[in-house]
C-alpha cells in the first residue's frame, strides 16, 4: 500500500461545528469560511434514497447503485453511496453504517 493520505470526505465548520462535505466552500448553516478536519460518524439514519438506474456515463461501471441521504444529526445530512444490496434493502429511518469507500466516497451499508 502506498503512503498516500486518504482525505476524509467530511470536514467541520470552525464556527458552528456543522459537518460539511469536503468540497464545501462556505458553511451551509452560518456562512463561515474556516473549517477543521473531521471524520464522518460510523452510522446515521436514512433520510431518503434513490436507486440510480441511468448513471452518468461510466459511473459505477454503469451498474445500478443507491444514493443515500443520511441524517447524522437533526437537520444535518451527508450523501453516501450504496453499491451492495442495492435492491429493496432500505427504508426511510433505517439505521445505516457509514464507511470510507475505496473511491474516497462515503459508503452506506445496511445494518
Amino acid at each position, binding site marked *: 500500500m502506498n503512503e498516500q493520505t486518504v482525505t476524509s470526505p467530511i470536514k467541520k465548520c470552525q464556527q458552528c461545528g456543522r459537518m460539511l*462535505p469536503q468540497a464545501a466552500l462556505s458553511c451551509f448553516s452560518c456562512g463561515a469560511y474556516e473549517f477543521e478536519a473531521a471524520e464522518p460518524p460510523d452510522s446515521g439514519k436514512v433520510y431518503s434514497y434513490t436507486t440510480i438506474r*441511468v448513471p452518468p456515463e461510466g459511473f459505477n461501471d454503469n451498474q445500478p447503485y443507491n*444514493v443515500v441521504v443520511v441524517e447524522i444529526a437533526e437537520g444535518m445530512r451527508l450523501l453516501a453511496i450504496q453499491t451492495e444490496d442495492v435492491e429493496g434493502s432500505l427504508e426511510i429511518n433505517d439505521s445505516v453504517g457509514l464507511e470510507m469507500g475505496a473511491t474516497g466516497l462515503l459508503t452506506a451499508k445496511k445494518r
Partner: protein
Amino acid sequence: MKNGAIPDNINQLNAEERIEFLFNFLALEVLDMRDVSIIGVGTTPFSKHKERGIADLSLEAGRKAIEDAGIDKSKIEALYLGNYAAEALVGQGSLAAITGRNLGLGQIPCTRTEGACASAGIALRESFLTIAAGIYDVVIAVGAEQMSTCSTGVVTSVLAGAGDTTMDNIYGLTFPGFFGLVLRKHMEEFGTTRDQVSCVSVKNHHNGATNPIAYLKDEITVEGVNESRFIADPLTLYDCCPITDGAVAMVLCPSDMARDLCKKPVKVVGSGHAIGTTSILQMESFTTFPATLKAAEMAYQMAGVKPEDIDVVELHDCFTIAEIVDSEDLGLFEKGEGGPAVESGRTAVDGELPINPSGGLISRGHPVGATGLAQVYELVLQLKGEAANQVKNPELGLAHNLGGSGAVSTVHILSKDF
C-alpha cells in the same frame, strides 16, 4: 415625508429619518417603472430536430415572434437569449450573437442568460426589467436548446452539471435521482401516493396530445406510468420529461406602445427571480424549493395578486413530483394537497385551476434553455383565447421556471391588456 421630495434639512436628518427618506425614494423609483407587454410570440415545434442546428431553431422562433409582433426589426434594441449548454451539447457558443446576426438585428447588444432549466425565464426577466427601467423600448427574448443529437448518457451528464459537481454529483446523483429523493420524501411526509403522482403524467400527456407544438402525442394511463421501468426509484420513465429540441421567442415593449401596435397585448404584471439551494445537502426540506417561494413572493407582490386570483398555470414539471411540489410552493394548494388535487381533476384543463394545459415539460418536451419562454408562449395564447387546449376565459396566468436542483427560479404573472 413626501415621496421623491428631497427635504431641505437632509443633512440634519438622523439615521432613522434618512432610512425612511431612502425607502420612500426607492419606492418612488419602483412606481416609476414602466408597464411592459408582450406583443409577439413565436415557437418551433418541440421535437427531435436532429437534422437542424440550434441556430436554425432560434432563428425560426425569432422570425416568427417578430412577424407576429408586426414590428420593423430595426426597432429592436436588445436581445436576451436563454440557453443552458449549447457548448457542451452541440459545440456552439456565442449563440446570442449568432441569433442576433441571423435575425438581422444590427449591432445591438445580444446577451445569453444561463440558469440551467430556468435560463429562458431569466431572459424574459431581463427583457422585462430593461424595458421597465426605461433602458430599451423594444427587446426580443429567445430561448433555445438542442439535446437530441447527444446520447442519453451525455445528456444525463450535462444536465447533472446543473447540480453541484463537487458535492452531489461525485456520489453519482443525477437529475432524475434528485427528484427520486424528493418523491420518496414527499410520499413519506404527506402520504402522497404512486397513483396521485402518475396522474400528473396522465394529465400532461392528455393535454400534450392535442397541442400541435408538443412533442409527445400519445395518451398514457396511471398503470402505464406505474409499471414503466424505473429510472431513479421510485421515479419511473413516464415520470420524466423527454429529451427534446426547440426554441421560443417573444417581442416585448412598454404597454403604452403595445396598445398602439397590437390588438391583444399581454402585460407582464409580476416578475420574480431568486436563487435557492445549490446542493441537496443545503436543503432544509426535500419537499419545498426556497427559490420558488421567493420568486413567487416577488411576482405576487409586484402584481398585487394572490394565488387564488390565478386562472391558468404553466409550471416546471421536469418530473411528475416537481409539478406537485411546485403547485404547493406557489401557494396554489396547501402542502400535501398537490397530489390529491391532480388526482381529483382540479388541475385539468376544465378543472378549477388548470395546470400545464400545454402538456408541460412532460409532454410538450423540455429543451432546457427554451422552456421558460415555452411556458409564457402557452399563457399568451391562453390569455388571447387562442390556445389548443383553451381554458375558459382566463384573466391572469402564472409561469414558473425552476433551474438546477432548486438553484434558481423565475415566476412571471401575465394579464390580458385588451
